[in-house]
């Protein structure tokens, strides 16, 4: 990613990443600070961005999410390591190829499309979980909707996303 490309990505994503942190309840000065950290990570590590593994939006989201857990919540986020001797069943080791990148891009588009067609109550659950840092129990307590209903909505949303992705790739 050269400087001009990064400036485009920055213009697109920095205000959205800022919105992400503000919705998680960070005050403005802390949000401004972590947005800079996230966007600098995108710049520094853009060579490591692999379009075969996911879209740019997915990559930026994972950096912002990890920064939230790490710098704000002061917790670690254990992740599986593809070079682990225990690693098994191995689609992640596919060599980067234009086909893999195209498949990842098409998955991202299909997820986007499925997201837009989710019923409002499922969309609300997904947003609360991803953008407000609420657990399902907290969401249930705050909204008065039973926990079982919240879980069902989350699972239905997941099924809709999965169905859309699988349906599209079969075509």
């Amino acid at each position, binding site marked *: 990613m050269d400087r001009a490309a*990064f400036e485009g990505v920055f213009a697109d*994503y920095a*205000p*959205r*990443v*800022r*919105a*992400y942190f503000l919705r998680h309840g960070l005050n403005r000065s802390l949000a401004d600070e972590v947005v*800079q950290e996230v*966007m*600098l990570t995108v710049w*520094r*590590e*853009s*060579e*490591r961005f692999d379009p075969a*593994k*996911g*879209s740019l*939006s*997915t*990559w*930026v*989201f994972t950096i912002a*999410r990890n920064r*939230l*857990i790490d710098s704000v919540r002061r917790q*670690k986020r*254990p*992740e*599986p*390591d593809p*070079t*682990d*001797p*225990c*690693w*098994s*069943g*191995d*689609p992640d080791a596919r060599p980067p190829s234009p086909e893999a990148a195209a498949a990842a891009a098409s*998955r*991202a588009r299909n*997820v*986007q499309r499925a*997201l837009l067609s989710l019923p409002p109550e499922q969309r609300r659950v*997904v947003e609360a*979980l*991803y*953008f407000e*840092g*609420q*657990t*399902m129990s907290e969401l249930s307590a705050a909204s008065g909707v039973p926990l079982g209903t919240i*879980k069902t909505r989350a*699972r239905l949303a*997941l099924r809709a*996303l*999965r169905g859309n*992705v699988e349906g599209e790739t079969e075509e």
Partner: protein
Amino acid sequence: MTPQHHPEPDELIAYASGSSPEWVSLVVACHLTYRAECREEVALLDALGGALLAEGPGEGNVPLPDLDEAPRAAVATAPAALPEADALGIPRCVHPYLKGGARFRYLAPGLKQIPLALDIGEFPSRIIRFAGGFTVPKHAHEGLEFLVVLDGVLEDSTTGEVFRTGDVSRRESGTAHRQHIPWRAGPCTCLVISEKPVVASTWWGKLLKRVTGV
């Protein structure tokens, strides 16, 4: 075909959205090390986060940082792996918690453990190695417990479920069961993380608990 035991969909969603506590994330990361289909599921859930980010409105103007001041060096993110833990078949996501070293210590006949530096409430998390044929006496759970099989086979004698490498056994508060390791399958190594200590309901279980603290 025996059924496989995966984390609940809610746990995968919480892992991807970033709302799950560290100890549940460790259980999920261990499972993902062994199970490609759940890695695919998490990739989809990460893509959902990306879609929500890309689609939502931005807020405010963010000044572009001075890029000349920001060296483009690749930063190492993965913590260093411990060769001795690799040799024991302990997944790398667990290595940062092996503060006391990667060596099994004797606990009781047929039981060895490595304590983990990850305490939730009053119960220390640990890796336990059961000898083949070992029986875990009947006990009740007062909090949520996760057990991930890292190597070998563990059977739940109460429900008849069989757990193999990568499987997650999830016990809710208020349930009781007995487990055993089949003789012929040899030793079984598990990651065990609980919210609360278990309550033993047999004299042998009570003795074992007093001796081992498990």
